[in-house]
């Protein structure tokens, strides 16, 4: 039997944005339900150990943001808002959504929906990037902070942006020896980034926390360097690193080969926007080129009753996520008929504007460097699900023109289980760097039910329930 829940506000995602939204809506009087894929609430940053590990205790909540996270989690628990954990929302319509959990389907009917679905690591392909032992910064943090696993012994960490530091700290805390820490952006980006950080008190504290840990570690962050290739027969054994120019384009004159069994790559984040696309929210390109739902001053998307907050409306970090979640929660409660005092809105709106401005500067300081897409060799995979190589994409583009949809059809890139989550930005990136195709000519891809793969029986049941 399908489980059906009714709520005023359904919040998808239990990261800082979702938790703050749920709390704000609850405090305004609304009946709220939170849904999240993870085993425990917390999202990317306040990652908790699975309950089964409870006896060993939680990882130390060392960074200031983690303390904030635990406070939020505590408040949500105290508020009595139910958190449906380990559920994958695979369909949403205005007013209703369907989820899967252990092969069972549930339906939530809600007057308002808050999308707080966060983000995932952006992948940039290079030779060997699909070898076991190459992991994203996010995956490394999941292993270390979420499962208390040590992903390797000798690591090369490469990427761009402020998330490299927490990744380094987490790896070192887990006893991994970091043999090289590579920031692709030039040092000037760091300076601009620091400028942005200094404008936010919370970010200042967070940055200081990680900077101190980093300085203590004795590691040096090499600017304008990145990973060129990972080598190994069945897993990573060595890594070639090298210098890149200001646009990220590899310069082949300084290559070095290092022994390592772990490569952590973090080239920024991409919003998890599939539910927003599925709901047919109007989508815009964010400052980093990714597709985000358009929101108004109170986080309402173009679809009535659908709100969005946090990374899904633009990569911005934990403080922005929390501020936006809070505002979206108030707005969703108001949409569901609860009264929210104008002062509360005014305050929440002001805070959101302030936080978003900081995030935007930070995002602009670490843009996706277009030249990095030149790292891929002709036989490097660009779509892992369907085993499509760069060469095939170039051949198809030469025959049919560089249009994403057509390339997808000709090569099957983007047709597999990830439905383009990983490879859509890769394709845009290689088309731009190799063929000079303006990424802005590509339209936002449509999303259909199910937004994440689900057994046919679940799809069938959800369609029967939702009509």
């Amino acid at each position: 039997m399908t489980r059906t829940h009714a709520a005023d506000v359904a919040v998808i995602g239990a990261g800082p944005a979702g938790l703050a939204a749920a709390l704000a809506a609850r405090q305004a009087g609304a009946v709220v339900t939170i849904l999240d894929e993870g085993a425990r609430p917390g999202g990317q940053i306040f990652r908790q150990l699975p309950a089964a590990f409870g006896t060993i205790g939680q990882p130390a909540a060392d960074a200031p943001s983690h303390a904030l996270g635990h406070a939020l989690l505590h408040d949500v628990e105290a508020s009595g808002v139910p958190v449906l954990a380990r559920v994958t929302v695979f369909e949403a319509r205005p007013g209703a959504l369907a989820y899967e959990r252990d092969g069972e389907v549930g339906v939530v009917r809600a007057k308002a929906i808050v999308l707080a679905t966060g983000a995932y690591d952006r992948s940039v392909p290079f030779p060997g990037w699909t070898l076991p032992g190459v992991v994203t910064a996010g995956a490394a943090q999941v292993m270390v902070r979420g499962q208390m696993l040590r992903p390797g012994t000798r690591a090369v960490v490469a990427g761009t942006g402020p998330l490299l530091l927490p990744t380094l700290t987490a790896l070192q805390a887990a006893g991994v020896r970091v043999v090289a820490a590579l920031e692709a952006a030039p040092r000037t980006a760091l300076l601009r980034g620091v400028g942005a950080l200094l404008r936010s008190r919370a970010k200042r504290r967070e940055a200081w926390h990680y900077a101190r840990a980093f300085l203590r570690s004795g590691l040096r962050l090499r600017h304008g360097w990145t990973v060129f290739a990972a080598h190994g027969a069945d897993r990573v054994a060595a890594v070639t690193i090298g210098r890149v120019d200001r646009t990220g384009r590899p310069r082949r004159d300084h290559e070095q080969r290092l022994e390592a069994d772990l490569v952590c790559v973090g080239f920024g984040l991409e919003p998890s926007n599939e539910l927003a696309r599925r709901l047919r929210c109007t989508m815009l390109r964010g400052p980093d080129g990714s597709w985000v739902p358009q929101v108004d001053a109170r986080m309402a998307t173009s679809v009535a009753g659908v709100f969005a907050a946090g990374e899904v409306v633009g990569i911005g970090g934990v403080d922005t996520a929390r501020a936006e979640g809070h505002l979206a929660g108030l707005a969703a409660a108001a949409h569901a008929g609860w009264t929210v005092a104008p002062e509360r809105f005014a305050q929440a709106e002001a805070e959101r504007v302030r936080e978003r401005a900081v995030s935007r500067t930070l995002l602009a300081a670490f843009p996706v460097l277009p030249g990095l897409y030149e790292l891929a060799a002709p036989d490097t995979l660009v779509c892992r699900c369907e085993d499509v190589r760069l060469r095939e994409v170039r051949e198809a583009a030469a025959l049919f023109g560089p249009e994403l949809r057509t390339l997808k059809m000709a090569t099957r890139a983007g047709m597999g289980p990830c439905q383009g989550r990983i490879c859509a930005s890769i394709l845009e990136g290689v088309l731009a760097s190799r063929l000079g195709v303006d990424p802005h000519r590509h339209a936002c891809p449509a999303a259909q039910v199910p937004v994440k793969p689900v057994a046919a029986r679940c799809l069938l049941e959800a369609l029967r329930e939702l009509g």
Partner: protein
Amino acid sequence: MSSRSFDVVVIGAGIVGCAVACWCARAGLRVLVLERDGVATGTSGACMGHIMVNPEPEPLYRLTRRSVTLWQELRDRHPELHYLACGALWLAESDADLPLLQGLDRAIAGHGDRAWLLDARELHRREPALAPDLPGAWFYPDDAVVLPMQACGVLLGEAVRLGATVCTHTPATGVRLGPGSRIEAVRTPEGEVATAHVVVAAGVWTPAVHRQLGLPPVPIFPRRGDLAITAPFATPVHTQLLEVAYLRTATGKTIDPEGSEPDPGANAMNVQPQTHGTCLIGMTRQFGGLDRTLHPELLQRSLARAARFVPALLDAPVVRTWAGLRPYTKDKLPFVGPVPEIPGLHLAAGHEGLGITLAPVTGELVAQAITGQAPSLPMAPLGLARGAAGARHG
């Protein structure tokens, strides 16, 4: 479009336009393909890939049989073509369906072609995943499955290597006619292209293209189909499967696409294994204009129907669903060949649920007409005139 003059301009780069371009290029013609969007972004990018011989009626048998032979030649010529020579099983759901199987077998025998009737035991030996109570099936060995979009690429790729030009994101916006209403040029937003022949291969958009270009009306009606695709998994089936009762719905009460009553829609079981381990699940049919929005209720019915025949499908992970528009004609035959009122104008549209199957034979017939060769099959049943008569009378 460096050259401004071509022998043939093909409007539309779906499977039919790609095949027409391929056969015209093989005939040595200078070909330009105009596509207002991207290659295979219309119906050919939203369908299944059953290469299917239809035992009846006679003209359709001849067309589909000839086209399957041409597909087999394409497979031999292009090793990169994903061609799954899996044959098709037409399944009976109960004993009441068995006469339909025998009817198919008689029809195919009448053409001197070969196929097999399978009893329950033979059927389950061939496809163990089928529901145990199914009483039998009819197996046609020469049917196959292609990946339609990849097939578009193979056909168009051959045309391009033979010198054809493809302009995507370039719609045909008009034609210039000379004395005797003869085709002289095609207009596009980038300018005019001189040509003696225009082939309209715009699928469900053919009536709109004709309207815009001031050409005779063509009675083609969009008939939506909803689909689901699974991720690769231990494929529970190896053969193209369809339920034989589909013949009954196909020949039963026909819905008038121009009627005022809304079409409630129909569905039947169609499960298609693909070369790389995924499985397509169809099939629904509903008239409802050019809207490509998925119909959840019909899709749900077709998933349930698929599970009736292949219970293991219930556990297959579905990665995506979507809908496509079949270009339907009232007598279920496409319009292929010259339009006599406008010398130089050719139609290649209206293939309903058989466009992938029929693309090669369509390409062959159009190229023969343009080069003045004798057609490999009779063209009269495919002319626009019979369509116009049909439209007047019903």
